[in-house]
């Protein structure tokens, strides 16, 4: 066991930190990358990160990576999330790419990975449908073979960043008569084609983050089938484990928590510093402990990957624990801010530039997106502990 990073890893974190300090505006407090006003900056940052080779460090060199360790990649992800820095396309780098490396053909890897490494593309994830959320395998989007193509019809929903995306990974039903998990295929589709329509969905924080994506006779060349025909469910599940395995959960909580602690040190209320209120200090200490647990749960996932092990229940543990913690941090933050917590980012009276209020609203989705906490616990119990399905 060793609970510290190597000097090389520490150096890299330092280098990245300095890079971000230089690149991000002085008063950078993070933004909703996907909003139109920030998108240009996101793309700019992506290019620069790609030039550094950081977007895809742990990839094999032949696909644009540097063959670095999983831990190096974790440090990159952790630091980027902690600094709330834009530029990563997590759909591509964190989810699609490692899935392609397992299930993709050599041709697919050569076609799709290098542009990701160069930071030239944006991907999005065509999974959920209006009638298929937790029960993803019931999805009804159809892909029908037609010559060298599949022809896709159907509707995907909650598709983050679809409005910026060049490509979409689509789970589509290719065999309607098979058992539901056995008739799905995993396809890579071009977003820039007739027959693909993107409609915005505005969330409760008034941000355009999600979309509905409709396919009407959209086409996907057969060479873009990942894995076997009708076996796409298992490809898709691999991707979900990558999606849920992030250190981003704890890094985000850690950052917000640190800002809250600083705020409580700097702010007087009722004649004393907020931090000197034992009830507040206790809440912050408690969150500090949980953030540390969350961090180690995610480190463990990376460590398993570095050992060639496949995290599964561990991803679900990290995801449910991490997202529930994000909600707790936001909730405690709002409790500390009291009446001021009501104020949005544009208010001059808003503490911490309204970030806590934004976090309070946006983290509502944290325990729902990428599989609800209930689904995660189902997975831990059934796949992880071997309990019989209900």
């Amino acid at each position: 066991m060793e609970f510290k990073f190597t000097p090389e890893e520490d150096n890299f974190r330092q280098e990245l930190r300095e890079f971000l300090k230089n690149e991000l505006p002085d008063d950078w407090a993070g933004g909703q990358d996907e909003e139109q006003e920030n998108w240009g900056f996101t793309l700019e940052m992506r290019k620069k990160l790609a030039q550094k080779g950081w977007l895809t460090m742990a990839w094999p060199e032949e696909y644009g990576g540097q063959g670095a360790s999983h831990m190096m990649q974790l440090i990159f992800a952790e630091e980027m999330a902690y600094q709330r820095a834009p530029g990563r396309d997590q759909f591509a780098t964190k989810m699609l790419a490692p899935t392609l490396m397992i299930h993709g053909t050599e041709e697919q890897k050569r076609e799709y990975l290098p542009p990701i490494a160069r930071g030239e593309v944006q991907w999005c994830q065509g999974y959920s449908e209006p009638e298929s959320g937790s029960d993803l395998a019931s999805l009804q989007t159809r892909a029908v073979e037609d010559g060298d193509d599949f022809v896709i019809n159907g509707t995907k929903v909650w598709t983050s960043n679809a409005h910026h995306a060049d490509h979409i990974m689509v789970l589509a039903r290719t065999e309607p008569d098979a058992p539901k998990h056995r008739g799905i295929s995993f396809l890579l589709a071009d977003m820039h084609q007739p027959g693909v329509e993107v409609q915005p969905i505005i969330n409760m924080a008034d941000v355009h983050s999600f979309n509905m994506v409709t396919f009407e006779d959209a086409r996907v060349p057969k060479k873009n089938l990942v894995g076997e025909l009708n076996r796409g469910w298992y490809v898709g599940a691999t991707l979900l484990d990558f999606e849920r395995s992030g250190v981003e959960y704890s890094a985000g909580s850690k950052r917000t928590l640190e800002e809250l602690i600083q705020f409580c040190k700097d702010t007087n209320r009722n004649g004393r510093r907020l931090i000197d209120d034992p009830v507040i200090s206790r809440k912050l200490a408690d969150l500090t402990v949980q953030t540390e647990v969350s961090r180690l749960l995610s480190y463990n996932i990376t460590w398993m990957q570095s050992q060639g092990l496949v995290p599964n229940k561990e991803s679900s543990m990290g995801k449910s624990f991490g997202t529930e913690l994000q909600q707790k941090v936001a909730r405690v933050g709002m409790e500390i801010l009291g009446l001021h917590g009501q104020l949005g980012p544009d208010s001059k009276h808003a503490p911490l530039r309204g970030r806590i209020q934004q976090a309070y609203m946006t983290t509502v989705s944290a325990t729902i997106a990428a599989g609800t906490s209930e689904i995660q616990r189902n997975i831990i119990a059934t796949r992880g502990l071997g309990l019989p399905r209900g």
Partner: protein
Amino acid sequence: MDLGLNEAQQMLKNSAREFLDAECPTTYVREMEEDERGYTQEMWQKIAEQGWLGLIFPEQYGGIGLNFLDLSVLLEETGRVMMPGPLFSTVVMGGMTVLDAGSEEQKQELLPQIAEGQLIVTLALTEPSARWDAHGVETTATQSGGGWTISGTKLFVPNAHVSDTYVVAARTGDGEKDISLFLVPRNTGGVSQTLLQTIASDRQSEIVLDNVSVPASALLGQVNKGWDTIEKVLAWGAIGKCAEMVGGAQEVLDMTVEYVKQRTQFGRPIGSFQAIQHHCANMATDVEGSRYITYQAAWHLSEGMPAKQEVAIAKAWVSDAYRRVCDLGHQCHGAIGFTKEHNMQLYSRRAKAAEVAFGDSDFHLEAVAQAIGL
């Protein structure tokens, strides 16, 4: 012990529900979120016609003479549909302050106007310090030339943008509770008002009072005795807010139960999954507990009995319970619930505003501790 509504209360509840179902659908609530005033004059007049604005005022002031418990029954209904507009601020925060502190003349003048919907009043109490105690009032009023000059900044003042008159709490002495109340018309020179951007899309304002001159007759009640009234108003406000929250929580429960019955996943309604069932059971228990703990305090207030502990217990519990109900409501609704188009988030944003209004659970647990001698 009697935990049921009496016949008159049941009638009030039924008629309110009927009226609000017709007049205050969520389409109206959504429109008003985007509207500058936040409500329509037409709706306000209808509310006045229902008698709601004078419901709690004695008949001699143009009211109906019902009590605070009756008002709480009404507020549960307005909370259920998230009724927009300045009813709460005008009646509970403005009108009841005038009723408690005002001279006979002031009451004769103001209360009938409020009851008729002709006068909108709010209470300008909290300041940037966001404190709920007398120390929080740093706005000062000094005597000058037979009148008063008021200076200071008020924050989180509900519906100040449409209120004709502000009841301003100001410091008039050095003693902790040397607070007096003043009637300040919005259009008085030196008053500036700015809307705040708030989570509930309600209408709260910053009010800056820059050497605002008001005549001696603007004093509401006695000099340095205003805090006695404010303490009562804070209790009424807290429990009135609890009543709204009970209504909102009940509606969130109902809409969630409805949704999980019809939403199908894995070939069955998601309401048949035990995790969802237990979420709903927890929500229902929270709603049930919230209702009785609220009405216990409302009854004590209504009877004019000492109720510090009952009020603190109620607001401490309901503030958190409503938030928990919304959290579980969201969890049961899944992604659709946090889209702007869905009603779920209308409630959860208001739950947060109601949670912190008149003191959150941290504040009231501290009050509970004091009340039981901890």
